[in-house]
């Protein structure tokens, strides 16, 4: 009897539309839709794609509990032996939704779940432990390689084969250590590794030191009435016409814009160029992403001392971690230099 596979995809890959449809609630079809069609082909003979569950990325993100419950019910009804979600590439909300669906499937339905994400997708860090995440390219251009890789792993899981290490099997480690017998003893592996290290050659350590990414929270502001506050945004709010040509995604730069004398952001002076969310509201009123208007009101009321006269803005979608970190450091330097006391950063 053929095994049963259910796929999960978002509104875009289901052909419903882009960001403007991102609030679509969950729905299901008893057939393969979007990339699930190719998955069906790749799985031929091994398993059947018995259905596809679809949900808008923003809906899932903003209604996590309900979306998860609804999707679990729909998926559960189709009695899968395995679930394949995405691939989400570097789309953060999609990655979170895929990861969440996979984790819930594993936990609640007790079947394995496979998805695909670019290694920097926030969904990876959140859900790598609950799902089999196959590393894929950072955009849908990588679809033709992503699906076979995901299906290859899915096949092994369906056959309940004994798996090797995550590296050998081609998925992002779930953070679990397991004992294996290598080809050579530890002493030899150690000397090999040491000689490579001394020679400056690349080597692969067998256990990475934990990276402590958290930083100690900065001390609270004690005297708000005299404090200078800065506004920063990764929501892509820029002066009309995007004078600095900040990219709509995968930003490689950020803009610094003088807002002294500006009391309000309107379609006349600012717009959103962020490619990763539905910009209807942001374009009607950019204050809903970069809250200049109310900050000015509170400044005039004396709630805080002064609004810093520049805003920093970039687009947060698909932005490489290294770039984001660089922007943060530079912005931080500027704020420090100008004696800013605190900052509010808005993201979409």
């Amino acid at each position, binding site marked *: 009897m053929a095994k049963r596979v259910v796929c999960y995809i978002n509104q875009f890959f289901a052909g419903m539309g882009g960001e403007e449809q991102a609030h679509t609630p969950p729905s299901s079809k008893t057939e393969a839709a979007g990339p699930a069609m190719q998955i069906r082909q790749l799985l031929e003979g091994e398993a059947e794609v018995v259905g596809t569950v679809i949900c808008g990325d923003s809906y899932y993100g903003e209604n996590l509990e309900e979306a998860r419950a609804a999707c679990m019910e729909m998926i559960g009804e189709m009695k899968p032996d395995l679930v394949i979600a995405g691939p989400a590439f570097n789309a953060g909300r999609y990655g979170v939704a895929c990861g969440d669906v996979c984790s819930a499937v594993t936990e609640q339905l007790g079947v394995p779940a496979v998805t695909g994400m670019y290694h920097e997708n926030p969904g990876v860090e959140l859900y790598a432990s609950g799902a089999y995440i196959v590393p894929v390219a950072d955009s849908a251009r990588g679809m033709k390689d992503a699906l076979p890789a995901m299906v290859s792993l899915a096949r092994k899981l369906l056959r309940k084969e004994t798996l090797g290490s995550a590296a050998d099997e081609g998925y992002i480690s779930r953070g679990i250590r397991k004992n294996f017998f290598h080809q050579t003893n530890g002493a030899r592996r150690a000397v090999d590794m040491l000689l490579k290290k001394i020679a400056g050659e690349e080597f692969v350590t067998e256990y990475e030191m934990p990276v402590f990414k958290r930083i100690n929270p900065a001390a609270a502001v004690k005297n708000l009435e005299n404090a200078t506050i800065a506004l920063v945004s990764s929501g892509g709010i820029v002066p009309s016409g995007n004078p600095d040509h900040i990219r709509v995604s995968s930003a490689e730069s950020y803009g610094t814009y003088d807002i002294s004398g500006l009391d309000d952001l309107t379609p006349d002076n600012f717009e959103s160029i962020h490619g990763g969310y539905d910009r209807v509201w942001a374009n009607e009123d950019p204050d809903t992403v970069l809250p200049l208007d109310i900050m000015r009101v509170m400044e005039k009321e004396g709630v805080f001392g002064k609004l810093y006269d520049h805003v920093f803005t970039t687009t947060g979608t698909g932005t490489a971690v290294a770039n984001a*970190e660089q922007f943060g450091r530079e912005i931080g330097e500027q704020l420090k230099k100008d004696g*800013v006391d605190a900052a509010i950063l*808005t993201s*979409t």
Partner: protein
Amino acid sequence: MVREIEETAGIPVVQIATIVPIMLTVGANRIIPGIAIPHPVGDPTQGQEGDRAVRRGLLERALKAIQTDIGEQTVFTG
């Protein structure tokens, strides 16, 4: 980005965004859940007055977070 700003400038940075788990992952220390992805700092569906009131509430909460000493990542809910 938020982490690096906070660390480099040594000042509290409050992040307002909707997908809280992602903010926890990227390391923001002071977090305010936003309203919706396309409009994190407002609610235009409630009309202009409603939108501005929501924005005010969120910003007041952000300012409160800036004045609160914390030891670890904290989500400031309403």
